[in-house]
């Protein structure tokens, strides 16, 4: 890039992925990035994470797909997407016009399928792939990859074997022991961890006496889940040797900084994109104010400060 944004004070390097700010976008909450061009400068976003992409097009779920809940929302889009073919032909060329890293969130229904998508997307213009392991494993009768360490590890290995790109694995919070999950995917070779995916929830329409969502359950996101997300990042940061991209209910710079103090090396904004479509760019300004207020030069220097022994608590920072 011609010139570093913000004198490079917000620049981070996530397992080789160079971002001008620590802020990327939650998969499925920022479309393909292009939808937000009216509101922000895509080149001032740390990285654009595009929506979950599968080998073939997917129509998603029928019925109502979203509902607001107290300080949050449930969604059951069902990973609707035009498929990897369409993405490579129509979307990626558009995105390549912008000087911003592109992370493609991918999913499949078997480790093999994950591998195929990863191979298909191993092309110029794609800077990293993020594995969505919160999907039912069709072969294993629909149990979710993200709740079983072995299954998750198998998916990560399948993806790593089929791509030259940096690989991020997105963890599900719907588990008893997230640290075991994190170590399993680290062991399997993931280059970074993003967390958290949504919490499973439902809302019932008491007049119709039926669940509101067509899929019955949906994923809970938004500020309601932030305390849970920060706690999980706080735990995992003390256990793994890979960087963490923290997410879950970030609404502003304060919240983003909270995740970084808890051990996240970068953050992702999700639901807030629906409310403040320019947030992925503007949040950077609040981060700079914070650095100035605390006399810190680089955003990297605040990562993990709130851990029991501060940054010494993070294996990743002490390799």
């Amino acid at each position, binding site marked *: 890039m011609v010139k570093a944004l913000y004198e490079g004070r917000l620049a981070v390097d996530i397992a080789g992925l160079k971002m001008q700010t620590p802020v990327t976008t939650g998969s*499925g*909450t*920022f*479309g393909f990035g292009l*939808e*937000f061009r*009216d*509101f922000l400068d895509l080149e001032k976003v740390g990285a654009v994470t595009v*929506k979950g992409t599968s080998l073939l097009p997917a*129509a*998603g779920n*029928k019925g*109502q*797909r*979203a*509902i*607001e809940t*107290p*300080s*949050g*929302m449930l*969604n059951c*889009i069902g990973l*609707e997407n035009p498929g990897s073919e369409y993405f490579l032909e129509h979307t990626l060329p558009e995105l390549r016009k912008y000087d911003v890293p592109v992370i493609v969130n991918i999913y499949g229904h078997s480790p093999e399928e994950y591998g195929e998508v990863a191979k298909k997307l191993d092309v110029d213009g794609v800077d990293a792939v993020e594995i969505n392991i919160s999907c039912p494993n069709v072969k294993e009768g629909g149990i979710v990859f993200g709740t079983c360490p072995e299954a998750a590890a198998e998916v990560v290995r399948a993806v790593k074997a089929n791509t030259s790109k940096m690989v991020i694995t997105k963890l599900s919070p719907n588990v008893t022991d997230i640290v075991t999950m994190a170590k399993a995917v680290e062991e399997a070779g993931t280059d970074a961890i993003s967390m958290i995916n949504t919490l499973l929830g439902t809302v019932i329409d008491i007049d119709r006496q039926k669940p509101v969502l067509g899929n019955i359950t949906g994923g809970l996101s*938004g*500020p*309601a889940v932030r305390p849970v997300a920060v706690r999980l990042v706080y735990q995992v940061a003390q256990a793994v040797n890979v960087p963490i991209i923290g997410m879950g209910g970030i*609404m502003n710079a304060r919240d983003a900084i909270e995740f970084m103090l808890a051990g996240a090396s970068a953050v992702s904004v999700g*639901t807030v*994109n*629906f*409310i*403040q*479509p*320019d947030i992925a760019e503007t949040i950077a300004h609040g981060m700079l104010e914070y650095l100035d207020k605390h006399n810190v030069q680089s955003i990297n220097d605040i990562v993990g400060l709130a851990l029991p022994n501060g940054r010494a608590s993070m294996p990743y920072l002490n390799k």
Partner: protein
Amino acid sequence: MPKTIATAKVVGQKVLNSTIKILEVYAPEIANQALPGQFVNVQVCKNTAPLLRRPFGVAGVNKEAGTFTIIYRIIGEATHILADVCSGDELSIVGPLGKGFDMTAEKPLLVGGGLGLAPLKFLAEGFGAGKTDILMGGRTKEEVCWTCIYDELSDKVFVTTDDGSDGTKGTVMALLPELLASGVYDCVYVCGPVPMMKAVANACLEANVKCQVSLEKYMACGLGACLSCACGGIGKRLKVCTDGPVFWAEEVVEW
């Protein structure tokens, strides 16, 4: 025509009936661009509950004054907050959003019910006073109190109520077939409850009259990002927020 996040200043609110209010805000960047059929996404408060913006069809613009209006029913948490905003208050509003109505009709017939009559008001204004006829249906006289608005705007105003308390007893389908048969109208624009829109669309198909429908589906972003409002089109998926909310009736396969 770029979408913007406007800090709109509330001009004032009027009461249409016991549960419906008309809100006028000053936001030239939106007022100057909005077309009939488009909508805006309003943030009713800065706290996290209610969290999401609420979409409202634009009910009219005053380009000279730089203002536009939305018409809403006080029904939930968000609209109760909205009902309390006063002249001078600021609201963050994203818009204009979506695609508007086709404006090429020679003699348009508007058909609407409930809050669907709000975007149709802007459409009637777009065609010009006296250019449109309107057929409105409601359960009771109170629900069709919109006549006070359309008497000024439209040429002929046809009314139906389920209980017969105003106009013809029954739904809009009690009058629509003969209106279509008259051969006066070259395009029908319908906005209202889904059953009404489906019935009208089918009647137009049979009568071989063009028909545009304005769909409403639960949406989170209004920008084509969240896919909450997706529906099925011919051989492709449609997004109500960006491909619509206005569609030609035949475009929509799965409502």
